[in-house]
């Protein structure tokens, strides 16, 4: 029987799953994924995590618990940095420790550090370390690594061609609007946007209303990079940079009717990013901007009401061709 490796369906699963899956399968392991988020998973996570942590980190704890008795190993890499001179977030850097000390009786955790901050660091080194848990055959590891990179490249290419991560990973089907009357940009971290339970399926909600949705993943990376680099100081959070750069890209576009920024309560990075985005958008454009904060208490009805009100406002404003109504509430 092959060794089972558990991967939590949370956080950067939405970014890197094809890569991890291919890598482990090539090494001859069986990949076990935690179940799609449910209320139980979230509640388990909330119970086992410190109160002050943000929603996605709490949810991650829940997914680890979901895997606890089903896998021989649990894969929680220490993702310190994924790009030169950048970081992800302190909670990602300390994630294996947070989980390890909060949940008892876990199977062995693979907590290899991935740190590409230093220009000399090599990604393969981390993969080799991970691979060595299971095999000493470096040729096999190298081959698996190459396949994993290919899979990741293919995944990113499909996203740039217009597929959403939740379509590719979760087989979620969306009704695309035949004739869209509004084009809304939905800005947020991958683990908030594409987790159907956490985002309360906001993507379907918007699409069903005949709205075209743009997410940061669909924009060109080079443009995002260029916009984010215009800041006075280098933005050192990789995913913060994506959200900030994406919002700034929209600034010059005339075809965006509104921006919805989804942040989770207690997200340190977004506390700053959402504020910077909102100030820039307000100062330099007339695009309505709406900040939606979600946490484990968010009621769906309240969120629906707020989204409806926002959309109504945009449509009403367009119909009346007035622009003197505050879009910011």
């Amino acid at each position, binding site marked *: 029987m092959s060794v089972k490796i558990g991967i939590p369906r949370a956080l950067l699963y939405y970014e890197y799953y094809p890569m991890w899956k291919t890598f482990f399968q090539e090494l001859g392991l069986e990949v076990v994924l935690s179940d799609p988020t449910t209320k139980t998973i979230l509640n388990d996570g909330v119970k086992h995590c410190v109160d002050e942590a943000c929603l996605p980190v709490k949810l991650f704890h829940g997914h680890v618990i979901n895997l606890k008795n089903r896998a021989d190993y649990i894969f929680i890499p220490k993702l310190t940095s994924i790009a030169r001179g950048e970081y992800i977030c302190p909670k990602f850097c*300390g994630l294996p420790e947070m989980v390890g000390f909060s949940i008892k009786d876990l199977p062995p955790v693979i907590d290899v550090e991935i740190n590409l901050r230093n220009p000399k660091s090599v990604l393969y080194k981390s993969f080799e370390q991970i691979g060595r848990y299971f095999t000493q055959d470096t040729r096999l590891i190298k081959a698996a690594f190459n396949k994993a990179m290919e899979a990741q490249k293919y995944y990113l290419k499909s996203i740039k061609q217009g597929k959403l991560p939740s379509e590719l990973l979760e087989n979620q089907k969306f009704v695309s609007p035949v004739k869209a009357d509004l084009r809304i940009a939905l800005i947020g971290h991958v683990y908030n946007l594409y987790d159907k339970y956490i985002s309360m399926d906001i993507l379907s909600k918007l699409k069903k209303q005949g709205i075209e949705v743009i997410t940061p993943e669909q924009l060109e990376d080079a443009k995002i990079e260029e916009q984010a680099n215009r800041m006075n100081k280098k933005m050192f959070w990789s995913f913060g940079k994506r959200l900030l750069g994406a919002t700034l890209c929209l600034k010059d576009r005339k075809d965006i009717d509104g921006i919805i920024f989804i942040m989770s309560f207690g997200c340190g990075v977004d506390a700053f990013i959402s504020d910077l985005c909102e100030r820039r958008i307000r100062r330099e454009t007339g695009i309505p901007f709406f900040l939606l904060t979600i946490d484990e208490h968010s009621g769906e009805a309240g969120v629906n009401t707020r989204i409806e009100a926002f959309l109504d406002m945009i449509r009403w404003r367009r119909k009346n061709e007035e622009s003197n109504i505050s879009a910011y509430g």
Partner: protein
Amino acid sequence: MRRVTFPHMGNLCITVKALFESLDVEFIIPPACTKRTLELGTKYAPELACLPLKINVGNFIESIEKGADTIVMTGGCGPCRFGYYSEVQREILKDLGHDVDFFVLELPKGNVGEFIKRIKSIVGNKSLLTVARGVKKATKVALALDELDRLSFRIRAREKIKGKTNWIMKKFHHQVQKVKSAEEILMLIENTKKELKAIEIDTKVTPLRIGIVGEIYTVIEPFANFRIEEILGDMGVEVDRSLNIGNWIMEHVIKYALGMNKNRPYEKAAKPYLKTMIGGHAQETVGNCVMYAQQGYDGVIQLYPFTCMPEIVAESILPTVSTDLDIPVLTLIIDEMTGEAGYRTRIEAFVDMLMRRKERNVAVDKYILSGN
């Protein structure tokens, strides 16, 4: 001539005063933090930003009201949010219509020439040697202030007539505003030390010892932590503060600039619990907590501002440290809504519990620690 200001952080204003006076820079010390400072900060800063940012914004606005036009602060490059403070604060002040220059003490995109040019724009036409001498003097002041604080922690817990230490320290902070130059500040510190040493102390008591760990701003700034050293000292507890400004300047600025070996014992102590640096002071928090336990302290208090990312990680590790090394830990999280009475009650309860624990001197596992 620029009128420079900077954010408050404990004794930092005295250190900066020593630095700017020796370099003849015109500066404005922000008015002492008050409720208004906090309210201004809370009003204009992002809701979920951490408390230091909010108090900083309040400081800046109050300094600008007094005529400041340049803000000097330190920076960093993550992953802690402090590294991006300057940008967010710049935007906030811009939206409020304040046109001020931000001078961040860091190498802008690794460009040394640019950095020196910026320093020159503040200090005028002085040689770098003069600047270095000024920095040296200021560091000396900062280290002397750390020592003065440490002495006060020791005396306060043992003084026979309660309140004497507080009175002398209050007098010191009042007088230090009036003296000029680093030399005079150092002299005043020496005199204050003598006064403290003259206080009659009770040699028979062995006070409880509590170590304070956590995020640097809340640990150091008395306005943010409601003068926790005084609260504990007045209860007869001897406090040790793991983070101090002088030490911070030595380790992170001077030694870094000169490429010297760093003395960071906490890194090794933290290793079994937190393997790598994760930004902010999480590693210090975990490491110092381990070291306090090894040194036989009676308890540890962790302080941090609400939503502080690195400390949240540390907080989730501390219960294991507490169990492993048998040391009670109390975590106190501070934001603009924190009420002083509730805060004091929790500290009192913690100290009571530590006292009982010490008196009975029995197996700890019979006790239930609450406090989180």
